[in-house]
């Protein structure tokens, strides 16, 4: 379990990093916090010839909060964002579920997005908040929306020479309720089933925005579109939530593994989604009521 031999380039800026990636092409990998890449190298499942270490690149170590949303640079750790009180509680709650504090202290937000583990929280969060990533290469940059970023397990639309320079996680509407729930066998484990819900309702509790993102159950984090559609335009109550939860896995190609079969994930997952929707609906209700109260 020793790392294979590799060349090491410490990038002192984004420009330096993308230059190095341009020189080394597909043989180079970006080293952020190393929480996924280094174990894979130790197991010799990943054997890059060059590591471009961006962890100390000054211009990648910033994050910027705007109305609870955040744009986060490539070298910003999960822990930094998690402990920033200006960041929306949905985002912080989600980040706090990633591994253990030691992992979050080294691991980076953009690194986890680039790694695209199907059971990881961050790709699911990116979908749930309808965020985007900024990919930068020596020849230019582009912004990729969440829905187009992850293509499969550990597979993204990052091209050779490109770096996830930043990710934007917008805040959800102030009136929206949210919930993040996971089933994990131990504290800090990847979820057997995870769900992020965002629900926005009007004063009559009619739903006008529903986002239900499942993770840990399929080849990528996925939006449970059948459940979302079942809620849109409906009055959110116990019955509609239950019906939506039953549809959560419709059209989702659920995969099983050592820790839980596909059947387990569907059954426990449907109940988890129901609980998450309940919680999100409660929060949405609270927000609307309190805003109405504030106006009155």
């Amino acid at each position: 379990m020793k790392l294979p031999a590799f060349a090491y380039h410490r990038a002192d800026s984004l420009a330096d990093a993308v230059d190095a990636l341009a020189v080394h092409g597909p043989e180079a990998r970006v080293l952020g916090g190393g929480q996924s890449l280094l174990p894979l190298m130790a197991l010799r499942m990943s054997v890059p010839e060059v590591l471009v270490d961006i962890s100390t690149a000054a211009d990648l170590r910033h994050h910027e909060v705007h109305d609870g949303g955040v744009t986060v640079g490539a070298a910003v750790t999960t822990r930094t964002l998690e402990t920033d009180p200006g960041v929306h509680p949905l985002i912080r709650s989600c980040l706090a579920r990633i591994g253990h504090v030691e992992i979050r202290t080294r691991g980076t937000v953009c690194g986890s997005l680039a790694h695209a583990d199907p059971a990881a929280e961050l790709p699911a969060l990116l979908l749930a908040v309808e965020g985007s990533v900024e990919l930068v290469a020596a020849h230019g940059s582009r912004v990729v929306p969440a829905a187009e970023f992850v293509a499969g397990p550990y597979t993204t639309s990052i091209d050779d020479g490109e770096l996830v320079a930043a990710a934007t996680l917008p805040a959800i509407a102030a009136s929206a309720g949210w919930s993040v729930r996971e089933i994990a066998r131990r504290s800090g484990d990847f979820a057997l089933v995870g769900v992020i819900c965002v629900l926005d309702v009007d004063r009559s509790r009619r739903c006008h925005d529903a986002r239900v993102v499942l993770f840990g159950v399929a080849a990528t984090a996925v939006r449970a579109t059948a459940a979302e559609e079942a809620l849109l335009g409906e009055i959110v109550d116990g019955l509609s939530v239950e019906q939506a939860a039953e549809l959560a896995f419709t059209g989702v190609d659920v995969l099983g593994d050592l820790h839980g079969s596909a059947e387990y994930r569907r059954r426990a997952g449907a109940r988890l989604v129901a609980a998450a929707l309940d919680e999100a609906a409660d929060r949405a209700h609270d927000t609307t009521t309190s805003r109405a109260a504030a106006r009155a």
Partner: protein
Amino acid sequence: MTLTDGWVGRRVRRSEDPKILLGRGRFVDDVRPTRCLHAAFVRSPVAHATIVATDASEAVQAGATVFTAADLDPLCTPWKGLLDWPGLAAGDQRPLASGKVRHVGEPVAIVVAASRAEAEDAAELVDVEYAELPAVVDPIAALEPGGPLVHDELGANLAFESWFGTKDEHAVDAAFAQATAVVEVAMSTARHTATAMEPRGVLAEYDPVARELTVRISTQAPNMLQSAFAEILGLRENSVRMLTDEVGGAFGMKAHVYPDEIATCAASMLLGRPVSWIQDRAESLQSDTQARDERVRAAIALAGDGTIIGLRSEIVSDGGAYSVYPRSMVTEGIQVSTIMPGPYRVPAYRSHLRVAITNKAPLAVYRAVGHPVAILVMEALLDEAARAVKLDPAELRRRNILKPEELPYTSAAGHVYDSGSHRESLERLVDRIDIGRHAAAARRRGTLLGVGIACFVEVTAPGVAFYGARGAPITAHDQVEVRVEPDGTATVLLGTPGQGQGLHTTAAQVVADHLGIPFDRINVLSGDTRTMPHGTGVWASRSAVVSSGAAAAAAREVKARMLAIAAHLMEVDASDLEIVDGAVRVAGAPDSRIDVAHVAEVAHWRTHQLPDDLQVALAAIGEYRGPNVTFNNGAHGAVVEVDESSGLVRIVDYVCVEDCGVLINPDIVDGQIRGGVAQGVGGALLERLHYDGDGQLLTSTLLDYLLPAAPDLPDIRITHIETPSPTPLGVKGAGEAGAAGAPAAVHNAVNNALAQRGARVWHQPITPERVLRALDEAADRLWPDRSDAPAVPRWTDPESEPECDQPEGDG
């Protein structure tokens, strides 16, 4: 400080801790002699195959040295652990696979280079061609005739078969025929491994001139390995030196001869240079001995008042590919069989055990060996029986558990329980569990609350009968040397080394009391077979018993010599003297005293003051003498909440009542219990080495082999009872008691919760999936696929099958 009450029994801080906590402990990987080379292994990626060809040319071109079986076999006699169990059959083990590989992770070639990283690089270049054979994976199917064979020369995959229990087999039939209630369970436990924090490792240094081999090794039995390595490598025992300082956990897993460790020594012998091999976690999960792979059907017969009248069990133990030397592959299965009656009056018991050979890593002893499975099955039977006869589970146990006046008691399986507090342990446990306190929280969270109890007995400090008398280099009479230095401090040399469990601290407490000098003037050393007295290692919860017994014997002898010298110096009779807190004084006249340091100075340097015939050597070796075995006992209680929507189990309270006789250091015993409970909880809820249908090991990292961590465990509340044992100091072993009872208590608690919905689980680990499925099926919400429950053996007719005498055992 005046210490009239003595050091034994105090919560003394562990003398081992400062250096370990400050990073100054010396583990195998901390030592790097000059010219040291590093080894990595090419291991089999498949479960069962013929080795067609091995091509190491690229690795050699890259600068590494590669040895295969052809290179090492001439240096090494093959080995296998047979003991002399009647009919036990096993295949030979060699340092590197020869001809065939028989489990994933079996070493095929050793690659030696200037660093471990280079050795791993070169190992990737070794090309081994395998012709795969069908793998023997299911231990019950393995026993059917006509299937593939793990060892062709054995003609079958049955390693061992025996009946245990009451001699009169008809007594059991009669009991079941007249029973008011009969309850049967079919259960399994999953393969675990010890996952010691310090993986295995060897630093072998062969001196070709002196023909001496020095082996720094992470082991729990250095003297046993000295003998075994000498035998296998053809060296004299006094030319083999085993060194071990700190050992980062062993748990029974480091008590065996391992092929990779012998191969590392052989490589040093061939190269004439030091060779270091430090195992990594992937290797640990593949190649450490494994345990707890048991499938059991059992039934209990009760009279109308809940009295147990009969018990039977049918056990298939999955022994893996080889029978480890010297302990063999059968100890666990035998103890599943013979411990099952536990602390209860079971008048008639028959048990049929078969040990299967499969294409998995060898099965061997792991903390509490067989006890966790035996206790799990018995306690599950009792809970089912309590439901059947509508008695409170504690009351059913109360009616059957041994009372003090029944001791010593010979169990239906032949074990002699020498002493204990079986009934009192149960009562104290019941008193400490306050279920009402948890009910409100469970209602608030909408979970199912369950409480489970489990009573246990456990083999500790066994004598020569189990291993030595059966031909293994393992016995019971460990030695300890105590010597007093010229300044009156004392040095204690232990034959059995510490493993992190605080043995140096407890030995010093015992010597302090028996020598009469303060704890902090005593330095304890262990771990060098060249200079230390002989010992047989840490196993079966024995080291506190045997080390304290031998240390006390040595200290008494040295004290007698000091008293004789002091008597001369003080011109009084030795029988009027005592040594208290470092001073020799006249009993009843504490002002008439001289310091031990003065006695020691005279004994070393001023012997002209003494008569010629007085012994002046203030050093003696004591040996352990004790009964064949002493059983500890106690009871575990778990309170769990089961989440019906996810199947997750959370332990909300845990109580252990433990009686290990006289406590030398309650803090150390508490630590032993907590660690053992953690391992037992791991077994109940999390740990499973998962081999697929082709014998491929899927749990290859700690991301998949799930160990419990602090957040997954409840506070563990401990109550001690001290019933002295017939050992020299009244001490019993304590190291395995936590692991022995925890799986049963947790399992019973889960089933107590599930029973509210008419559901049960029967297989460990109790995964959320198994729980959810049981709940769904009890509510007629059937699942489409087959469950992952392992097959459990059917009953076998007791014909004229081989039968074994009852052993003492390995805790």
